[in-house]
């Protein structure tokens, strides 16, 4: 009886239903907490590019005080009624660059909430194995990189996955994306251990992960181009303000 085909089929069906039911229940029950974690991580990622977050910093509070969330189009104009959380970078990536909607996290001055100091720009692209994404923070000159952070889905641990580590990301600090008025972006080089301190458009590479580095370079170049109009607008207004 235990070996009959009917028994086996019913057994397999029963097991599948029970397992699926339990998993569906667990997934639903834990979802609010998981979503909260993801949201907190997103905010931490944005903030960590522009400031050092020590332990015990209230991320939610700092984020709501300092960050203004806007969405812009390729012309650099603010799109009303949209929030960055409505924008799926992966979906936008499939559109032609000039149709993309781009989230921007403007950083308000700590003393004057109406003054925009600098901005954090989310970027998105492909590494070696899967998608990569990141946030790039510019200084108030909208040229120098203040900080970056990258995340990845499936880069090789120890090689391409190093883009998510602080020592790689720190290499981008102080690099510049403009040469005069021309956008040149920042390129991670092949090979590791070189000193590019004097070259503001080059970053030391990751040994064994040149293809991931290329993905990062393409991602940055492409998105700086998308953001170019917005960046230039702020560049000129900030320059005038500083005169």
């Amino acid at each position, binding site marked *: 009886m235990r*070996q009959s085909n009917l028994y086996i089929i019913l057994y397999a069906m029963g*097991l599948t239903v029970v397992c699926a039911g339990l998993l569906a229940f*667990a997934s639903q029950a834990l979802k609010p907490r998981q979503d909260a974690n993801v949201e907190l991580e997103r905010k931490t990622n944005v903030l960590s590019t522009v400031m050092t977050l020590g332990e015990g910093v209230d991320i939610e509070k700092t984020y709501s005080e300092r960050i203004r969330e806007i969405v812009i189009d390729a012309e650099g104009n603010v799109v009303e009624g949209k929030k960055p959380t409505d924008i799926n970078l992966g979906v936008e990536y499939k559109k032609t660059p000039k149709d993309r909607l781009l989230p921007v996290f403007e950083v308000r001055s700590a003393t004057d909430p109406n003054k925009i100091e600098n901005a954090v720009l989310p970027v998105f692209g492909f590494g070696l194995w899967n998608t990569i994404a990141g946030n790039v923070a510019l200084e108030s000159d909208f040229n120098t990189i203040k900080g970056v952070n990258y995340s990845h889905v499936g880069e090789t641990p*120890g090689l391409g996955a190093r883009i998510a580590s602080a020592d790689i990301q720190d290499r981008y600090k102080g690099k510049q994306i403009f040469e005069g008025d021309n956008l040149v972006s920042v390129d991670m080089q092949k090979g590791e251990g070189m000193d590019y301190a004097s070259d503001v458009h080059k970053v030391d590479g990751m040994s064994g992960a040149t293809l991931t580095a290329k993905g990062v370079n393409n991602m940055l170049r492409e998105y700086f181009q998308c953001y170019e109009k917005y960046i230039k607008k702020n560049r000129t207004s900030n320059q005038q303000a500083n005169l």
Partner: protein
Amino acid sequence: MSTEVAEVVEKKSEPLFSKKNRKLITNPLDIDNPVTVQVLGICSALAVTTQMKPAMVMAIALTVVTASSNFIISIMRNSIPSRIRIIVQLAVVSLWVIMVDQVLKAYVYDIWKQLSVFIGLIITNCIVMGRLEAYAMGNKPGPSFLDGIGNGLGYGLILMIVAFFRELLGGGSIFGFKVFEAMGLDYKGNGLMLLPAGACVIVGVVIWVQRSINGYRETH
């Protein structure tokens, strides 16, 4: 007739922590260790041992999965059709693995981010399937549960030893606490220890030490 019944009752009421059952927990820690003696689960032992904290979470996760899958499979063992037993075992193991994954994602998100890919791989961890086939399919739920705990701990013990040396020598810290800095010493981390090769070396040394203590001889 009555003695027979008494015997059956007596068998059933064998205490959970009898001498035989205690062995189920202590044996895998040493003479029957899944990693160093049976050489199962090596891949994750190399991958998650650069730091002690993720190694500990991984060990706990594997213990939970092995013990609960052993328990469930042992309850079901008399009803499982033998022709589909492997896939049934796989379904139960993956159920627990996904449960663990979801719980970690909800409660320890940072560690989940580091471990997520390895947690998924528990499904293919030879220890889990090995214990199900070798023990849970033929034994009662209680002892099977203990067997799972024992093997999980045996795995965890090796993981913690390896992670201790790798984190100490590779990064100069224990559980993230900078030991050498606290002692006022300047220690430059040994990069080899942070690579999987470093784990191979340490696992090898652990096996060597264990075999010389236990007097193991290779038989031909």
